[in-house]
């Protein structure tokens, strides 16, 4: 019977979800929902923020921006939301999930990722339409894919991708494993895989620049630190860290 009790307890936990936030004594936990592409730069900023704000601990939830919006609208507890595109931030705004007007803190643009040494000799965006070249892009439903579509429209070049991936890291993976000859990724992703892929920049990329907005979430449990985090990201140190990762200035 004792065993059964333990089993039942486990099952109940399973069903109700173990959702008790671990609020340490005296420390405030700031929860930041951020686009997956911000993983490296935001993680680097966390240490500096925490040492500048003793007693505050930053906790991240990195995922695709639209997945984050869904989590927020389903009642996920968060203080700050940083999106990889305007569209998802607008979606959050329309759903009444934001406390403040979002401000753009970084920009990102596309580049062509190829194998190191560029064995296929890709030199321009139009080269991607060459027959026999295996090109992988993001699906139009995700921000990097809509940026790709925009570039296609502006250049009049129609790509015939071998696959439309769900996120930019998958595109990068397929170039890294050698299964794709070229992939359209963000400058920041190519930078994070430096050495494993080479970058072919193209001028048309500047016609499809993504902006990254950040905002405090409505009814944020830690509204004060949330505002401090937003200011920190928008400030000098945030800008420097983001620039290091390859992001452009807003």
């Amino acid at each position: 019977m004792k065993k059964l009790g333990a089993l039942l307890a486990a099952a109940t936990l399973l069903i109700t979800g173990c959702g008790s936030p671990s609020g340490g004594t005296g420390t405030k936990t700031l929860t930041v929902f951020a686009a997956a592409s911000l993983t490296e730069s935001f993680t680097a900023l966390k240490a500096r923020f925490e040492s500048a704000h003793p007693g505050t601990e930053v906790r991240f939830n990195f995922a695709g921006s639209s997945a984050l919006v869904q989590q927020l609208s389903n009642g996920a507890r968060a203080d700050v939301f940083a999106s990889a595109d305007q569209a998802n931030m607008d979606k959050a705004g329309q759903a009444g999930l934001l406390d403040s007007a979002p401000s753009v803190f970084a920009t990102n643009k596309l580049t062509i990722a190829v194998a190191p040494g560029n064995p296929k000799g890709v030199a321009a965006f139009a080269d991607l339409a060459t027959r026999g070249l295996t090109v992988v892009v993001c699906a139009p439903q995700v921000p990097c894919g809509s940026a790709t579509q925009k570039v296609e429209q502006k250049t009049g070049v129609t790509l015939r991708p071998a696959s439309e991936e769900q996120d930019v890291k998958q595109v990068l993976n397929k170039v890294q494993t050698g299964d794709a000859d070229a992939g359209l990724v963000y400058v920041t992703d190519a930078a994070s895989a430096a050495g494993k892929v080479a970058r072919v920049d193209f001028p048309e990329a500047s016609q499809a620049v993504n902006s990254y907005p950040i905002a405090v979430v409505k009814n944020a449990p830690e509204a004060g630190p949330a505002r401090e985090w937003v200011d920190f990201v928008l400030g000098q140190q945030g800008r420097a860290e983001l620039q290091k990762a390859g992001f452009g200035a807003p």
Partner: protein
Amino acid sequence: MPWVLWVPAALALALVVLPVAGLLVRTDLRRVPGLIVSDASLTALRLSLETAAVSTLACIVLGVPLAVVLARSAVPGIRVLRAVVLLPLVLPPVVGGLALLYLLGRKGFLGYLLGVTAGVQVPFTTAAVIIAQTFVAMPFLVVSLEGALRGGGDRYERIAATLGARPWTVFRRVTLPLLLPALGSGAVLSFARALGEFGATITFAGSLEGVTRTLPLAVYTEAEVDVDSAVALALLLIVVAIVVIAVARPRALEGTAR
């Protein structure tokens, strides 16, 4: 049966039923038909049904001999082999996809050979989808068949052999007919698993409408922009899965209660 079993049994049932019910409650059912009949979703549904059917066939053609070998041969190390065969059951699908990519991808050793000798590239093709589905679904078939083979014992086969039947005749006339019910349930399980395959497919085959974007991948893609439409597609997947299992149920039951 001790009555206390009802409590965990009910919880177990709730764990399966409630999430699906939650999906139904949150869906605007009037909009579902409109969302489902889009070209993209019908293409995905057709691709899913076709690839799952071919995968199931591949599972049968390859899995039946494998199950017989595993259940009947006394080769040393067969237990290790058995564990390896069941690996896809516990492997995260993404890992399965990566493994396939490292074998059949352009730089994988088999993929490289295929590319050089035949000019064939496997990733990003419908064939890759079928391979991924077969990879994850085959253990289900092998497990059901092997269970039946071991449970049934080899009495009839021995008798047939003492009566002078050659091994191939014994396999064809005795082993296979005895396996049929289990084959039915195993095939249904494999088909259902192939239908729901996601991780290995997206990692190994990619996602392109009409070529590699099966229904589960379409749900994922759609969820980025329109959750309602993703949920509608998910419902379609659930309905197809339930129909498949329900249609095959009598044979599946026969297979377990022999």
